[in-house]
């Protein structure tokens, strides 16, 4: 399968401080790639670098075109949806308004209406709460809202930053099941950052391990899961 997203020698900086060093990474078309690593390894920064939210250097190719000279708004319009850490919901707006904003960049009104239905289908709880202020939703519901909003873009690539963070295990299980469905049925490729390595490796078909800003290992989920060092440090057995 061709790579949908490719980075070569990607470096990222917060001000004068460099936090990512020479990252080479691929996300296959239709695949799910996990990004593992401890706190501070640079996983969130990597997602931010893809979306031009931090200063970066290096090459980023998406679906044949270059991303490295685009601003965030333009990256998004190419079909990359980013669910940031902390979810980034518009807390003072209603659920419905949040979803509508997800489709802001699209022109195809009829399909947008379809997508509303589809998204409410995945997350019926959001439909129940559609006129509520987003800030009043529970943590799990906000995560669903964040993913739903990203889906409203009809993205080719979904970037997820710690989707399991702060959520009860049952909710996490549901959400990950939905992610699997979305990947299969809607052919949305995904790059998932997760501290919970077990969860991530169950979902993904490929994985990379980041340590202090560098990729130290990459390969199929099987191989990464089977690696001795990874098992000890990240999987706990």
């Amino acid at each position, binding site marked *: 399968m061709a790579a949908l997203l490719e980075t070569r020698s990607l470096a990222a900086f917060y001000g004068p401080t460099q936090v990512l060093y020479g990252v080479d990474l691929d996300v296959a078309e239709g695949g799910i790639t996990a990004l593992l690593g401890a706190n501070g390894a640079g996983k969130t920064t990597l997602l931010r670098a893809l979306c031009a939210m931090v200063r970066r250097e290096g090459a980023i190719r998406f679906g044949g075109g270059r991303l490295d000279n685009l601003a965030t*708004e333009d990256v998004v*319009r190419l079909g990359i949806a980013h669910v940031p850490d902390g979810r*980034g919901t*518009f807390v003072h*707006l209603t659920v419905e308004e949040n979803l509508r904003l997800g489709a*802001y*960049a699209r022109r195809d009104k009829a399909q947008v209406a379809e997508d509303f239905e589809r998204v409410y289908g995945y997350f019926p709880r959001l439909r129940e709460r559609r006129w509520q202020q987003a800030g009043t939703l529970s943590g799990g519901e906000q995560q669903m809202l964040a993913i739903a*909003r990203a889906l409203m873009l009809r993205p080719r690539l979904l970037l997820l930053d710690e989707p399991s963070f702060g959520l009860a295990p049952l909710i996490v299980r549901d959400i990950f099941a939905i992610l699997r469905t979305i990947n299969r049925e809607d052919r949305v490729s995904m790059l998932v950052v997760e501290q919970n390595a077990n969860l991530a490796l169950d979902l993904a078909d490929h994985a990379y391990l980041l340590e202090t800003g560098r990729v130290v290992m990459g390969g199929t989920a099987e191989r990464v899961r089977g690696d001795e060092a990874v098992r000890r440090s990240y999987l706990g057995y």
Partner: protein
Amino acid sequence: MAQLLHQLFSGLANGGIYASIALALVMIYQATHLVNFAQGEMAMFSTYVAWSLIDWGMPYWAAFLLTLVISFAGGVIIERVVIRPFDKAPVLASVCVFIGLLAILNSLAGFIYTYTIKPFPSPFPEKAWYGSVYISPHEGGEIVVMLVVLALVYAFFRFTPLGLAMRASAQNPVSSRLVGIRVGWMLALGWGLAAATGAVAGMMAAPIVYLEPNMMGGILLYGFAGALLGGIDNPWGAVLGGFLVGVLENLAGAYLVGADLKLTAALVIIVGVLVVRPSGLFGRPVVTRV
């Protein structure tokens, strides 16, 4: 009793003007967390533009609408050219820029139009069916115009995609970019809208206070008071605050402190609100993260 009603209605009429300015201030505050000290002078300059158009023979309402368009464009240009370079600068730098803008606009108006007081026409006749003992036709008409403008602005923000995008940009610029909104342009549009709203206030106020470069000083102060009273981050609170301040100002002037100290009453309101409850009646308290 008649006196009281008259003061009340007159207060509401003034309050409509203050509410407009308050709304303009809040629109910019919500998006940038900055107070536009030059809002009054922008409104004054727009009013002079309207005056020129009418002077050149344009009928009132045509001039009114054209002035709104010009003011909108002016607001957008000011934001992109003057304000944008300072968006990451410290507060003092921004305050200085606003003050500089205030000074330039004031003196430009003085230079082009001189400091002689000019009369400004009201679209409402001296005597009309909607006038009465309590309220002059201009005051009555002006309240209606204000309410229409405010309703249009409300509808814009509430029901249109662009309005939604602007609200989103003001609340959460980072997430807004992540849905593809060009936040920079939203900011510029916000300024344009604020400028147009201010222009309405100026054109409605001018027939009463007469057109001269310093006409908006007091009105700006009342606008601040209204915005703070209602809640500097809540547009509709600010509108309500504007009307409240208008009524309070009139009542205080008539019954408490006399006309001379009315402006001081505004100062008292401002300082009072800031000290007792900075988020105003309807605003959200701000939490500072350490």
